[in-house]
């Protein structure tokens, strides 16, 4: 089941440039939370700080406190262990090109030393069903490479891969930005169903998407969290002038 996320005074840098300033927010468990804002506002950096992917970029660092459930992300746990409990889906679908569909889904478990074949079969099937890809690929699981699927299928494969390690939180960094409208629709529907079981944080530059899938929305601008509230409130009666300007399309 999903867990809540508490972020307190999170700062992040790329070299000397500061990308995030004192972000404090509380993400509710088993809900979808959207992060919106103009490009370059730090929304991607923010989610990448939640599972410490941010620090894989050379010279990037982050400071502050992030609690995911009982887990203290920046204190007392290793980045690798954190990432095993937090799934992530990236902007561009990135299946492992040399692996079959099956191996792609099982990768997170296999590469971490989990080798129970019977369980793996079960988990792969369940994950592909959860990501609504099972029916399309069940006959070619081991024959076809993950890279041979269409873009939308690849992204659902990546979701299945993230779900296979049974995370408590699913981070999605603009998961639909490289997809066509039909694939986008499928992924959105998926998010809608997945949030019953996982806490989802989704970055999007598409305000309609945020409105469609998320109960809560945070608006970022220039590395600061400007406003964080129920999605409906953000899109109808925002309390900050800048949020209103962005929502009504006056900039960004």
């Amino acid at each position: 089941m999903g867990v809540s996320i508490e972020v307190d005074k999170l700062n992040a840098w790329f070299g000397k440039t500061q990308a995030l300033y004192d972000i404090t927010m509380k993400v509710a468990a088993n809900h979808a939370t959207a992060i919106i804002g103009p490009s370059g506002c730090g929304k991607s950096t923010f989610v990448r700080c939640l599972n410490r992917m941010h620090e894989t970029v050379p010279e990037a660092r982050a400071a502050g406190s992030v609690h995911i459930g009982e887990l203290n992300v920046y204190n007392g746990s290793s980045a690798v262990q954190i990432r095993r409990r937090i799934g992530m889906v990236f902007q561009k679908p990135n299946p492992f090109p040399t692996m079959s569909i099956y191996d792609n889904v099982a990768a997170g478990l296999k590469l971490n030393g989990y080798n129970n074949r019977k369980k793996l079969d079960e988990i792969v099937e369940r994950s592909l069903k959860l990501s609504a890809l099972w029916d399309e690929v069940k006959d070619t699981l081991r024959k076809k490479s993950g890279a041979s699927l269409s873009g939308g299928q690849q992204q659902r494969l990546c979701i299945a891969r993230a779900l296979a390690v049974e995370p408590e939180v699913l981070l999605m960094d603009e998961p639909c930005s490289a997809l066509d409208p039909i694939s986008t629709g499928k992924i959105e529907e998926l998010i809608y169903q997945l949030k019953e079981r996982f806490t989802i944080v989704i970055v999007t530059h598409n305000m309609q998407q945020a409105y469609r899938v998320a109960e809560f929305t945070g608006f970022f601008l220039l590395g600061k969290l400007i406003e964080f509230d129920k999605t409906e409130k953000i899109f109808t009666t925002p309390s900050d002038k800048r949020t209103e300007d962005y929502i009504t399309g006056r900039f960004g």
Partner: protein
Amino acid sequence: MPGPQPGAKSEVALSLEVNAPPLRSSRYSPLGDQIFTWAMLACGLCVLALVGLIIYELVTKSSNSWHAFGMNFFFRSEWDPVNEQFGAFPFVYGTIVSSLLALVIAVPLAIGVAVFITEMSPGWLRSPLAFTTELLAAIPSVIYGLWAIFVLVPLIREYVEPFLARHFGWTGLFEGPAYGIGMLAAGVILAIMVVPIVSSITREVMTAVPRQQREAVLALGATRWEMIRTGVLRNARAGIMGGIILGLGRALGETMAVTMVIGNRPEIAKSLFAPGYTMASVIANEFSEATSDRYLSALVEVGLALFIVTIIINMLAQVLVWTVTRGTPARANV
């Protein structure tokens, strides 16, 4: 939307509850990453260590000769193992002359080939031709030597040398008995070996010249050759120079083919028909027979000099090629 049906959904949900998350219990230890990082670093340091080792070996093993002859070693012509008098001048001379001769023959050919492949060749011919010329670089040196001994040298002896002596004998470069074996044969076989290097680098830098440069010149009403000359060759000349120098580096260090046809006599003659000796050849021929410490040390010193020269030449070549190709991907199109 082929999403899970309501019924299927609850079944899936159930199985999720039943299985304990498989990784929750597995511990991660940073030790694996540390060992891996150190192991890869060790491999990287191996490369440094090898070059260090080469320099150390060459310097320490040549000190005997260095102390005996000093800088004079490279200007003395005497090579007398019996009386332990060593001077490397004939080898330096032979190396330089054979390599320059190779460049004189190879460079126009290599540039011609590169120009044809990049600018004139029909598309279907381009990559087979490029592949074929590069195949020349894959033939082992000893096979070139074998071919040279039994095919090239007789050819040079019977036809080329009499012809050159008759028409260009007055220059003094082509006189004396036609052995076939000698500086000329070494130069020709080296040229064949150097062509693929020079032409592949030339091709690379010519491809790196932006298309706009060509179009700008063509738009002025230039013929194709004028376009190649002003639009391409002029822009690529530093890189082509680099390719030529790289070819020189290869020619200087080339051992087997040269050893098999140059005649191996430490003499300095003006005529290219005369036999000679190169730095690499003298090491190849005499190293395992060198009995005294000073003899061995003198050979290692020849090696040290060869090492230093080739390193400087390769560095220079790389800088020149880099000035043209930087910013463009290395294998733009073949």
